[in-house]
């Protein structure tokens, strides 16, 4: 049993498993961008034939990133990172955690950069010199031990730089944890508010039901500015938070400047012209001479008095080709095709015949609605810890190098032998170069 557990542990903690997960996640993600996500079922049935549809449906490909198997892959990745990082920490602490009595002075044989010198000086004289030399190379004092076969020196710098990568790997765990928490307890929803309206109903994305907040959000007013080229420059909703009928907070919300209240985030997502906008249109029935003023909503079929015809209007336009304010209109009559035209203050300015009627735009009340995205993400602090850890990890890894140097001085019959080995976690060439330069200088200064 224990053996089996050990095998599973080894398997989950192997780099082969990491690579397998990386490739699988990448392939799955590619699939998720090829198959459009989260459409309505009838759109999918028009895209795929029934066999493929049911196959894709069976494997949850239509909501792949939230499917059980994708979640399992992410959990496997977390376990993999956790095990690997723990193994790494144990190795680091065993090898590099500092205890003077545990220093391994013996020169590592495996490093291919061992150097060997001979000198005619005595062991103790050389020890003094090499201490000074190590101090100038490493910037710290060397540890020294005397054994039967000679004197050993050891110096190291930047041991903690090995923790940079540990930070980076842990950060991924934090971010994945934060994401998991957000997926379970958080929500993303939206709320559309017409100017002056207030509501506490958040429509959840991807679900049919909605959520009721225990306070109201009111849109006091909405403004939008445009650039000369017609693109929006800035739009802003002035929101009020209403608790138990009392407005307690009033804040402007713009794109990139959300409102945070009680852990919820209110982002300015979109805007539009609300259906509560209306136009006052004068209608004259030329056959009967009857004249009325109609109050009409956008895209609503309104019966025309004294006839069986209907009129509908579209969105208001502040200045249509020099005719001033106008709305598009459609006249729906029995037995004739729809007639489309434009109604302004001057009457019908463009388009087809308007039959027995003449129309005139009297007034237009344009009302915007603001589209708010409302999100709740309890995993946010963990995600930020993750972000900061990644950053710290990279900084540590970037700016510090773990360097070690071993020196062994052993007495010979005449003079002594010096062995030097170095190791550096990166920038090996630069370190070795510096070593060579300093050695050369020592040679010239001291050797006869």
């Amino acid at each position: 049993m224990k053996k089996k557990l050990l095998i599973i542990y080894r398997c989950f903690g192997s780099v082969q498993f990491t690579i397998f997960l990386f490739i699988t996640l990448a392939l799955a993600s590619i699939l998720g961008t090829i198959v459009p996500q989260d459409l309505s079922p009838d759109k999918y049935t028009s895209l795929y034939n029934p066999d493929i549809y049911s196959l894709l449906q069976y494997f949850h490909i239509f909501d792949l990133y939230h499917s059980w198997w994708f979640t399992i892959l992410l959990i496997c990745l977390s376990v993999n990172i956790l095990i690997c990082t723990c193994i790494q920490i144990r190795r680091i602490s065993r090898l590099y955690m500092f205890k003077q009595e545990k220093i391994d002075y013996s020169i590592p044989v495996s490093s291919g950069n061992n150097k060997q010198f001979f000198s005619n000086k005595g062991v103790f004289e050389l020890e003094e010199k090499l201490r000074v030399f190590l101090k100038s190379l490493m910037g710290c004092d060397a540890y020294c031990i005397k054994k039967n076969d000679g004197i050993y020196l050891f110096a190291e710098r930047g041991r903690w730089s090995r923790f940079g990568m540990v930070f980076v790997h842990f950060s991924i765990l934090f971010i994945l944890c934060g994401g998991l928490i957000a997926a379970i307890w958080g929500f993303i929803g939206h709320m559309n508010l017409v100017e002056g309206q207030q509501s506490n109903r958040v429509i959840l994305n991807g679900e049919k039901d909605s959520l009721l907040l225990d306070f109201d959000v009111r849109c006091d007013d909405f403004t939008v500015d445009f650039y000369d080229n017609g693109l929006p420059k800035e739009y802003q909703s002035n929101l009020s938070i209403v608790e138990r009928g009392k407005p307690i907070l009033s804040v402007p919300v713009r794109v990139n400047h959300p409102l945070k209240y009680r852990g919820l985030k209110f982002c300015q997502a979109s805007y539009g012209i609300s259906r509560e906008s209306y136009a006052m249109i004068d209608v004259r029935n030329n056959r009967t001479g009857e004249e009325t003023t109609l109050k009409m909503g956008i895209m609503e079929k309104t019966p025309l008095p004294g006839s069986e015809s209907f009129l509908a209007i579209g969105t208001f336009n502040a200045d249509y080709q020099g005719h001033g304010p106008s709305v598009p209109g459609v006249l729906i009559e029995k037995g004739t095709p729809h007639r489309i035209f434009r109604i302004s203050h001057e009457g019908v300015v463009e388009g087809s015949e308007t039959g027995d009627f003449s129309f005139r735009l009297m007034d237009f009340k344009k009302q915007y609605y603001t589209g708010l995205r409302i999100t709740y993400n309890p995993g946010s602090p963990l995600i930020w810890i993750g972000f900061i850890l990644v950053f710290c990890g990279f900084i540590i890894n970037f700016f510090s190098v773990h360097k070690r140097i071993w020196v062994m001085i052993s007495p010979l019959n005449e003079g002594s032998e010096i062995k030097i080995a170095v190791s550096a976690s990166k920038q090996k060439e630069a370190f070795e170069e510096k070593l060579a330069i300093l050695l050369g200088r020592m040679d010239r200064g001291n050797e006869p």
Partner: protein
Amino acid sequence: MNDTYILSVTTFVYFFAAFFYLSSLFFHKRFVERVALIFVCSGCALHTVAIGIRWIISYHLGIGHAPLSNFYESLVFFSWAIIFVFLLMIRRYKQPTIGMFASFFAFLLLAYASLSGQVAHEIQPLIPALQSNWLISHVISSFLAYACFTISFGASVVTLTRLIGRISTDTDFWEDVTYRMISMGFVLLTLGIITGAAWADRAWGRYWGWDPKETWSLITWLIYGTFLHARLIGKWRGLRMSLISILGFLAVMFTYLGVNYILSGMHSYL
């Protein structure tokens, strides 16, 4: 002085740089290489000035923003980033082939931006979603990452041709360049994704939404992550590493261009 005019001049400067680097490969003359380097440096100077001028002009137009906001500006900055990364590493790797790749890619990008006629050159005002302090850090780290990956791609193409064409089995130098550029690019891409996520949280209220651009940047990240783990821990070398690197670069290109042309998403600006 018009910035787009300077940039079209810069295009040709990079072309000549690439040309001289190519000739230095055949003639093995230190002098030719020196000339190429002078071209690259002067191209980079012009390029930087042009970006600066464009930045200043945008303020004169009353819509001041860093020139990192539309397709044209992103091509120009991508090209600048490649040359910048190349100039940073040239002290270490005095290799004309890298110079040739860098200046050739910079030339291609600028040529497409300046001469194709399909890319609008105008300075456009920022739409509300882009009006954020995250813009500069997000775009700069992402494009510097792309630039590192471009140079690593060049190096792995050399490795691949050497191994497949049986020209030489000694590809240690090129694999080292590939590895170093990828590790640099990976760090920058990670920062790019993180700044992007932090920005998305402010603008859209969520860190990650599986938008095609986000997903493809993750795919790129996973491919290069595979590369780094395979090299550092699995000790893979040679052919399969250069193939992973090339695959990674294809993913970079798809993240940069393909997503916007083929898939649709919220990241509609490049």
